């Protein structure tokens, strides 16, 4: 009986953390889209990434949560902030002069995409999502990730490294000063 009470209390705690993380995630996502200053959008993206990392922890994906915070909040958002500071303040008001037909079409297209996702996932997976399969306790730990990544999915690992190298070369070429400046 006491074990049941403890289990339900833990369950309630997980639900509370999940609800807070989900609302923070969606709220900061809306903030990213609606802020007129890109600097504040990039800062709101940090909140979005942090709340997503909390949800990854709830899903027992510890390594992915750590990589999320390191790679996204540590590298990607900092790079965004540098470029926004380099480009300078260029204010853009998304709904200046009243909503245009483009705005209506964009909202309609995004809503249609959302409905399409919900219907497709609901139709495909409504049966198989009801029962959860169980596995070992090492799920999501760095040791487990390392074994799965470097033994079962070694080709994906190597291809990812090549893609990162190509992107780095492309970034250097795009940002180099030595190209002819005739334009």
């Amino acid at each position, binding site marked *: 009986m006491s074990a049941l009470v403890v289990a339900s209390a833990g*369950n309630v705690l*997980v*639900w509370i*953390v999940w609800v807070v993380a*989900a609302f923070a*995630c*969606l709220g900061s*996502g809306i903030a*990213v*889209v609606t802020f007129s200053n*890109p600097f504040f*959008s990039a800062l709101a*993206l940090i909140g979005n990434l942090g709340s*997503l990392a909390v*949800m990854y922890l709830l*899903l027992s*994906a510890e*390594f*992915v949560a750590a990589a*999320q915070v390191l790679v*996204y909040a540590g*590298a*990607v958002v900092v790079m*965004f902030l540098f*470029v*926004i500071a380099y*480009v300078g303040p*260029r204010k*853009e008001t*998304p709904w200046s002069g009243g909503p245009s037909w*483009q*705005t209506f079409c*964009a*909202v309609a*297209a*995004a809503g249609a*995409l*959302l409905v399409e996702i*919900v219907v497709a996932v609901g139709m495909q997976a409504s049966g198989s*999502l009801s029962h*959860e*399969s*169980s*596995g070992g306790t090492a*799920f*999501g730990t760095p040791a487990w*990730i390392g074994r*799965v*990544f470097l033994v079962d*999915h070694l080709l*994906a690992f190597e291809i990812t490294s090549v*893609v*990162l190298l190509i*992107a*780095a070369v492309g*970034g250097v*070429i*795009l*940002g180099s000063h030595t190209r002819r400046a005739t*334009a």
Partner: protein
Amino acid sequence: MDGPDVAWYLAVAAVLFGIGALGVLIRRNTLVVLLSLELMLNAGNLALIALSRHFHNGAGQIFALTVMAIAASEVCVGLGLVVALNRRNLSLDVDTLSKLRG
């Protein structure tokens, strides 16, 4: 599993993907379009990890890590383009950037 079912995570991922798609379609600043793309990639990651936990299959988490690397590559190239545009004193408005010719 303690806490919410996988369907709740998938619902959050779907709504986040919709928000990101709305941002890509509605905003005209190139930087904010790239930030909204990050939102869409993260929504995909959340769905992958939720389903990976649900089916206890490690491929979902590996795929999420790969998506993270691809997102870093995309930001590298995209921000390189933004810097190149800024150096040529071109506008960062995606409506006016209809030609790739410098």
